[in-house]
């Protein structure tokens, strides 16, 4: 845990990643605040903030006395949100670095095609 963003946000994002890659399926129980605190060796209040953010975003809900669960439709919602952010998070820095290396968008497209053919 050492990038610049607040810790609770990093915790929330890790759970989001698990929902997206299916390791935390819909209607399954998410890790509890105390489990997260112990695993990441962080203050339980920080872990609780991460969970609360996911609840506010509709990506977790509480079953009384049982724990936090992933609601149906959470994965689709997340994928949509990440797709919207894809340009800003990935394409913009990609093109900025390309420009520094004197490549234009066309060059980058060609590289992507060539790269894909290699796989």
């Amino acid at each position, binding site marked *: 845990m050492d990038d610049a963003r607040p*810790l609770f946000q990093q915790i929330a994002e890790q759970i989001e990643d698990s929902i997206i890659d299916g390791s935390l399926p819909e209607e399954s129980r998410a890790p509890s605040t105390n489990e997260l605190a112990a695993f990441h060796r962080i203050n339980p209040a920080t872990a609780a903030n991460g969970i609360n953010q996911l609840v506010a975003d509709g990506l977790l809900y509480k079953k009384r006395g049982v724990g936090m669960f992933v609601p149906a439709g959470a994965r689709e919602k997340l994928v949509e949100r990440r797709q919207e952010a894809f340009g800003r998070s990935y394409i913009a820095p990609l093109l900025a670095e390309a420009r520094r290396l004197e490549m234009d968008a066309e060059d980058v497209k060609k590289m992507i095609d060539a790269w894909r053919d290699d796989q």
Partner: protein
Amino acid sequence: MSVVSLRGVTKRYGDTRAVDDVSFDLHENRIHGLLGRNGAGKSTAMRMLTGQEVPTSGQVRVFGENPYENADVLSRVCFIKESQRYPDIFVARHALEAAAMVFPNWDQDFADRLVEEFRLPLKSRVRKLSRGQLSSVGVIIGLAARAPVTLFDEPYLGLDAVARQAFYDHLIADYAEHPRTIVLSTHLIDEVADIIEHVTVIDRGRIVMDDSSENLRSQAVTVSGPTKAVEQFSDGHEVLHREDLGGFTRVLVSGVPTGRDTASLQVEPVSLQQLVVRTTQFHDAALAGSGNGNGKGNGKGAWS
């Protein structure tokens, strides 16, 4: 809610103000870091809020009351000192038995598990224990006492990395189950950075930082790159630390400049330890510059 408050507290020893007009709060059920260099006034502050010393002036309140000779308040406070002394005839078991009698929330099962884990020889005389074993006596008492206010003043002397990690792991897990107000006073800031929720830094008897860890994390950045670009980027912000090499500069700026060109710059987060060290040095240098210091430190001293 504040369970401990210091208001305008000063403690004078002869000409030295060990604590100088200090005000801060400890909030209920939070883990606080009380940080600062040796001789900064941390231990003096903790002795006052545990009723072991009386302030020269100012007000100390614990659960709303004066802690001095106040048995009701003190039964709810556990203070683990680096320099804790035990009677010569004590074996380790006696120290734990004494603690079990003093603290109403004492958990014997938990204490037994900790004894096992820290490999504490219960039948050895306390004065024959190694430095690390002596520290583990304190750590075990501090955890198993489950006192509503628990203070650990440099509890680690002689504890190896494995034992320290065990302490942190138990602290997090037990605090999660039994929330209470905890103060960690330590030089090993990186080790506790993600555990403490609130940071108070004392330097030369004065508070130089008092904020939540989350706020502090987003309050400063390290910027490096060509000198000119770095200067443009940090213009108008307080530069806590600066290093130059050829045309290359690295600064630690407080406040995060936004909307500025960062193309040629590397902007990195600052660890809590970095922030505390640089802020302390910054204040030391400012004091030395104004001739206002009380003789301790020279503004560039190493952190230890």
